[in-house]
C-alpha cells in the first residue's frame, strides 16, 4: 500500500516538476508579455497542483492535507490576479479582461 502511494507521489511530483520546467522555458523563450504570462500561469497552476497532489498521498493528518490544498488555491488566486494586473499594465490600460 505504502509502496503504491510512494509511486503515485513520485509520478505526480515528477510531472509537476516537468510543468514547472516547461513553464520556465516558456517564460524565457516566448516573444511577448502575454504569451510569457500564459506559460508562467500554466506552469504554476498545473505544476504546483500536481506537486500538491503528490504530497497529499503522504499526508496522515487530514488537517495538514487541507492546508496543502489551501496553499494551492491561494497560489491560484494570487497567480491569476497578478497575471491579470500585469497583462493590464502591459496592454497599457486597454482591455485585458479587466474593466477599469
Amino acid at each position: 500500500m505504502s509502496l503504491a502511494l510512494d509511486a503515485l507521489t513520485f509520478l505526480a511530483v515528477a510531472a509537476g516538476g516537468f510543468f514547472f520546467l516547461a513553464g520556465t522555458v516558456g517564460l524565457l523563450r516566448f516573444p511577448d508579455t502575454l504569451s510569457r504570462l500564459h506559460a508562467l500561469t500554466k506552469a504554476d497552476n498545473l505544476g504546483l497542483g500536481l506537486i500538491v497532489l503528490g504530497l497529499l498521498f503522504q499526508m496522515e493528518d487530514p488537517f495538514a492535507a487541507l492546508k496543502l490544498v489551501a496553499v494551492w488555491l491561494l497560489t491560484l488566486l494570487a497567480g491569476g490576479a497578478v497575471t491579470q494586473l500585469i497583462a493590464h499594465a502591459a496592454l497599457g490600460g486597454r482591455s485585458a479582461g479587466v474593466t477599469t
Partner: protein
Amino acid sequence: MALDAVLAVLVVGVAVWTVAARDTFAAVVGFVAFGLLVALIWVRLAAPDVALTEAALGSGLTGGLLLGASTRLGRTEAEATGELPGGLLQFAAATVSVLVSAGLIALVLLLPEPAPTLAPKVAANIAATGLQNPVTAVLMAYRAIDTLLEVMVLLLALVGMWSLAPDHLWGGAPGRREPADPDGVLTFVAQVLLPVGILVAIHIFWVGSVAPGGEFQGATIFAAMWILATMAGLANTPPVMRRSLRLLLIAGPAVFFAIGLAGFAIAGAFLAYPADYAKLLILIIEIPLTLSIATTLALLVAGPPEQEPQR
C-alpha cells in the same frame, strides 16, 4: 547540508543582484525575493518564529513599502545614477567592506565551542509564564520591557511620520485614496482573500503561546489585509485625528502598562505576573497588542496624511 549550501549561495547571489541592479524597482523586487530566501534560512536555523516574522514583515511589508516608494520616485531614481561616486571611493568602499566581511568571518569561526546559551534558563523558568513557546516567553515575560519599549518605538515612528504632513493636511487621512473598482481584479482578490487572511492572522496569533507565531506575526498579516483592502479601494485609511483610531493605537501598550504596573501590587515587580494567572494576563495583553501593532504597521505603510481633512 547540500540544501543549505545551495540556499546560502542563492541568498548571497540575490543580495549581490539587488546591490548591482541598475534599476531601483528591480533591486526592490530582488530584495523581496531575498527576504523570502532568508526566511527559509531561519527555518533551517530552527527559528520558525523568526522565519514567519521575516517573511511577513522583513520581506512582505518592507518590500511593499519599498516597491511603493520606488514607483513614486520613478524617473528621478534613474537620473540619480549619474551621481555615482568616483572609482577611488568605490575602491575604498570595497576595501572597507571586504575587510569587515573578512573580520566577521574570522569572528564567526572564533565563536566559542560549546556556545554559551540561555536555553536551559529559559526552559527552567517557562512554567512560571504558563507559555509553551519559549520565544513568546522571552518576548512577553523575561524581556517584556524590550517588547513594551519596542511597541513605543513603532508608535513614535508613526507620530514622526505623521508630523511630516503639510499643515493644511493635518487631520486628513494617510496615504492616497484609491478609487473603488467593483469589477476590478484587485477587488475580487481582496474580497476572497480578506476573510482567509484574517482567519490565518487569528490562527497565527492564537497558536503563539504554544507554537511558532504570536502577536507580531499575526499583526503583520492583519496589517497586510488592511493594506490590501485600501489598495483595492474597499476601505479608506481613517483620518489621523479620529479618536477611535488613536484609542486603537494605544490600546495594546496601555493594557501592557496597566498590567505591568499592577504587577507591582500583585506580583511584587513591574511587568511581573503572578504564576497562577500568568498565561491569562499575557493573553489579555496580547489581544489588544496585536490590534495596536497591526494598526500601526498598516499606517506606517500608508504614510503621512495626504488627503484633505473633512471639515
